[in-house]
């Protein structure tokens, strides 16, 4: 299995190195640095084979994480494991950066000790790990806590420790291509989650119980139900129940977690349209005009809009005129960055720029990279909506009504590109 895990900074300095199996020597650390991090050409594959040792690497900002093995392992699993590892570290100390890793290196060694043993994944759920690694490290656990560890590690529910108590019961769902849930609930509650999944709605429609959710107060999407192409769930969701009844019921982990991830391809409302116009005026001048149109209900506001218009490498100067927001030419990024703080629905805004070029004898034509865009909109462009979320806790005396719930919909741009 995994023979060793190494973490490097962008210069290739080793920040963490943990070897699990004998067949991985110290020279493996250097082999990866020399062959991959310091290699001249671009990374050709996330898996590198050096001297019959396979190196799987993942890059987070400028940190390299590499798993090393000599066996023919399941590649998808190793990558997923590396990502899990990143998640765990993020849950403990926030963003993965050189600074954070250096400051928390003791903690990381502790984590690596628990997560893998002899190269085999053992326990990778942040919730459960927090009982082992408390960052205090002092042997001061009471008898009660000790027995808790015992029951915890024997228990069936690896993702939630028992005996969590909160005064207020808070729960919120946040829909954005994935459903992220934050729950702070006492005891071992059982939750049910409902959404406007087409299959469920159709089924209920036949049964005669029609829901009122069709009356949407949200953005452009007036659809009653959406067709979900495929979805994946957090391990706490009972898959068998989902398969048979399409109902999502689960015992939630504590804190923030991703309940489900879904994908739709049909009837997606694109919140923005980007219309680019590029005109080459002679050899040393380019005229660019970009119009963006917001395509959702006027009462809603999109936020943090950023349009990135690429410019050729031989740009010497740029003059920009825009009606809304701020635009700037960033020479280091070879792009005009246009930022708009807020924009209501059904509006239009445009920017025009004159780009002066240095004459070059380079015959290569400019490749015209796409215009990319970032934004946040307060609705789910997929049309997914949360219909209900119910909480049942039989042992402790709080009911569904006592739970404070709220839902926030955010449509965040992933890769939003328009070719020009």
């Amino acid at each position, binding site marked *: *299995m995994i023979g060793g895990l190494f973490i490097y900074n962008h210069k290739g300095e080793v920040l*963490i190195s943990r070897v699990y199996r*004998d067949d991985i020597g110290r020279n493996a*650390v250097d082999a990866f640095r020399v062959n991959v991090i310091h290699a001249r050409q*671009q*990374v*050709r*594959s*996330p*898996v590198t*084979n050096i*001297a*019959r040792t396979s190196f*799987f690497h993942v890059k987070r900002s400028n940190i390299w994480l590499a798993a090393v093995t000599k066996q*023919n*392992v*399941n*590649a*998808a*699993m190793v*990558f*997923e*494991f*590396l*990502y899990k590892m990143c998640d765990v570290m993020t849950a403990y100390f926030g963003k993965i950066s050189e600074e954070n890793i250096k400051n928390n*290196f*003791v903690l990381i*060694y*502790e984590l690596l*000790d628990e997560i893998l*043993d*002899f190269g*085999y*994944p*053992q*326990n990778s759920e942040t919730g459960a790990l927090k009982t*082992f690694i408390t960052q205090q*490290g*002092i*042997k001061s*656990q009471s008898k009660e806590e*000790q027995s808790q*560890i*015992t029951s915890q*590690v024997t228990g*069936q529910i690896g993702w939630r420790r028992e005996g969590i108590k909160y005064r207020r019961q808070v729960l919120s769902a946040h829909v954005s291509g994935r459903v992220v849930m934050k729950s702070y609930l006492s005891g071992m509650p059982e939750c049910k989650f409902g959404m406007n999944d087409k299959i469920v709605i159709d089924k209920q429609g036949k049964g005669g119980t029609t829901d009122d959710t069709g009356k949407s107060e949200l953005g452009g999407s007036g659809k009653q139900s959406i067709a979900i192409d*495929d979805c*994946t*769930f957090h*391990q706490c969701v009972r*898959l*068998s129940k989902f*398969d048979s009844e399409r109902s999502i019921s689960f015992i939630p982990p504590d804190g923030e977690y991703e309940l489900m991830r879904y*994908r739709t391809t049909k009837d997606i409302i694109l919140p923005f349209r980007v219309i680019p116009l590029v005109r080459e005026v002679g050899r040393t001048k380019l005229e660019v005009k970009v119009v963006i149109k917001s395509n959702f209900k006027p009462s809603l506001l999109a936020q943090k809009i950023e349009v990135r218009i690429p410019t050729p490498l031989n740009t010497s100067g740029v003059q920009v005129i825009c009606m809304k927001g701020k635009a700037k030419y960033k020479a280091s990024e070879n792009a005009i960055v246009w930022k708009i703080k807020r924009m209501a629905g059904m509006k239009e805004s445009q920017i025009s720029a004159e780009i002066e070029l240095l004459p070059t004898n380079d015959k290569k*034509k400019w*490749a015209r990279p796409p215009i990319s865009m970032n934004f946040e909109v307060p609705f789910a462009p997929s049309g997914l909506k949360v219909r209900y979320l119910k909480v049942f806790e039989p042992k402790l005396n709080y009911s569904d009504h006592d739970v404070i719930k709220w839902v926030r919909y955010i449509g965040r741009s*992933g*890769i939003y*590109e328009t*070719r020009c």
Partner: protein
Amino acid sequence: MPYFGSEETVKELKRALSNPNVQADRLRYRDYISKVIRYMTQGLDVSALFMEMVKASATVDIVQKKLVYLYMCTYASVKPELALLAINTLRKDCADPNPMVRGLALRNMCNLRMPGLTEYLEQPLVAGLRDKASYVRRVAVLGCAKMHSLQPSTEIDSSIVNELYALLRDPDPVVVVNCLRALEEILKDEGGVVINKPIAHHLLNRMKDLDSWSQSEVLTFLLRYIPRSDEELFDVLSLLDAFLQSPHAHVAMATLCLFLHYASSHTAVQNDALQRSTAPLLASCGTTSRELRFAGLCHIRQVMRSQPSLFASHYKRFFCSYSEPGYIKLHKMEILVELVNDENVALVLEELRSYCTDVSPELAQAAITAIGRIARTYTEKCLEILTGLLSLKQDHITSAVIQAFKDLVWFCPQSTASVCNAIESCTDRPQDSEGKRALLWLLGEHSEGISSAPYVLEELCADELKTEWSPGVKLELLTAAVKMFLSRPAETQDTLGRLLHHCIEEESDMCVRDRALFYYRLLQRGIQETKRVLSGPKSDPSLSMLTGRQEEPVIRWVSDFNTLAPLMNKHDSMLKESERLLATQPMGVFSALAPLMDNGTSSPLQTERQRRASEPVVTTTENEPPPGDTDTTLSSHGKEDEEEAFCLSASPPLSHEEFEKLWVELQTLHTQNLLAPCAQTAPETLQAILQMVHIQTLAFTPAHTLPWRAFLYTRSAATIILTEILQEEDTVQVSVKQYPENKLALRGFLSTLQSAFQTLNAENTCENVALSF
């Protein structure tokens, strides 16, 4: 920083760690210990602090304990006698009331890599296996495997094995999976853990309790179990049905693998499973993580080997996004080529065309090659695009387009006219040798269709005389000139004459010179004779019938599915495969494996044989025989190779980098002293002599320097032999490395080498004699 004044640093740390004031202050003490670990991580040797660190292990601070254990596990093998001091503390901890401390101590005790540990280990391990806390049991179970790996040669303790088998029924899911892992390692020599019916059914019932890592491992273990009846088989499959849609790509793929494996005699079930797993596979290539996307794409390509049309309706998912890394784009293009059908061809071509102007020349060329492959079915549309690309006048694009034309003409003779027109109007010349060769081939083969062909050839020929080209291009140039002479003698005669003259008189490359001489003599025998020899088929229409790759049976790739193999390129995946075989089969497979290693590039004889084995696929294009082929050819090749006479060959050439990599990787197999101390006198002569016996000299130090060194390599059948010759004073030492090992070839090589040296000596003595006279 740690490399400078490292001794000072270690001394300073030593002083601090033994300072009672520091020891009294818990936080400061821990701080110094973490400093030690930090230096250890950076590669500084801090083993001198072992004594102080052992002392620090006797503490109540768990974090400090963990750090010290980490230190001890790293250096225990260097200082075994000091490590024994720590054993007492560890054993005491193994009896601690806190399960976490017990587990920690046991785990680290097993991690100490030193001999003689076993006697101390056994008792706490057995106790750990029966511990009431599952945390300790998890550790103990894997501890058994670690103990075994410490002393792999010792007898397997059957009581421990039995205990582990019993623990498969443990209530804790991780203990169960750890048991499987441990048993697998301990019983490796006997074929790994045995999965019988009760165990298999038990595991199947526990599947839903396991975490995703365990699930995918258990599914792999279950591959070993063969259901007794069809009824049982379908029960098992329906139990696992839900896992086909698992959110974790690796679990979904492991399940698919199991389905395909179990249902190998039920094609309908297999197809259904493949159909149902399209969603998770597609989802895995839509994830935000590039690496998982890459893994997903590689697996999709494997599935497509059997069901090319499975993903046809999802072709849009394989359009590249601008910011994706090259390795993903390349795979997506490959997939797109396979998915083309009548409905989507226009859109796919449109998309591919936009990739042709990619900033990276490699991707642009890949896109052009992809269009070239689609052109075999949709000739007209693609030709239009390809011809349009020529007008961009960029070297790398022109070169790739001409190469695509070359392949196209070979496959679809009906496209010849338009290709010829395109070449006619193209004024740009490719600059790289591959592109040049393609252009020359087209000119020579279709000189009737290209009216300006002789003039282009003349221009290229003049170029050739000015600048040095690679031998490959020169060979192609010669052939093209002779062929053109046959069809358009008047316009070519002059050029051909000059070319032949140049190649025979001034060329230093033997191959080119020989070829030129050959053509010269052939032409002397008359035009008819030359025509008979040179005119082969101009295209192979029978190949154009093959619009896509043939569907392979699932069984060809299923054994590799969901491992590392699909992610590596073909050659590497074969290495992996052979390694796996090596691991499982003890002896006598070397020769059988030999054809796998070089895949038809080693000797002409072998290539010929492979050509015969997989007739339709070996052509001028990159369409190599599918890797699965080797499975079938494996057994038949083995025998032949053993009987085959020993012969050396220096091709394909090995680059310096490759040589260096192999040299570092391999162990020296054989060293020998030669009694021929005058090798250094004339390295050039030596090189020439060795070349005659097909041993290539890669590098040598200048003559008359001591010690004198030379690096040689050669190939025989399927092994590659690397050699270093080192001459000091009056001894010549030869060290040989070989991969894969083949005693027969090694012996042959050594005797060849020896006789080469003797020849050299004989020559030298002659010279000396001549001089003395």
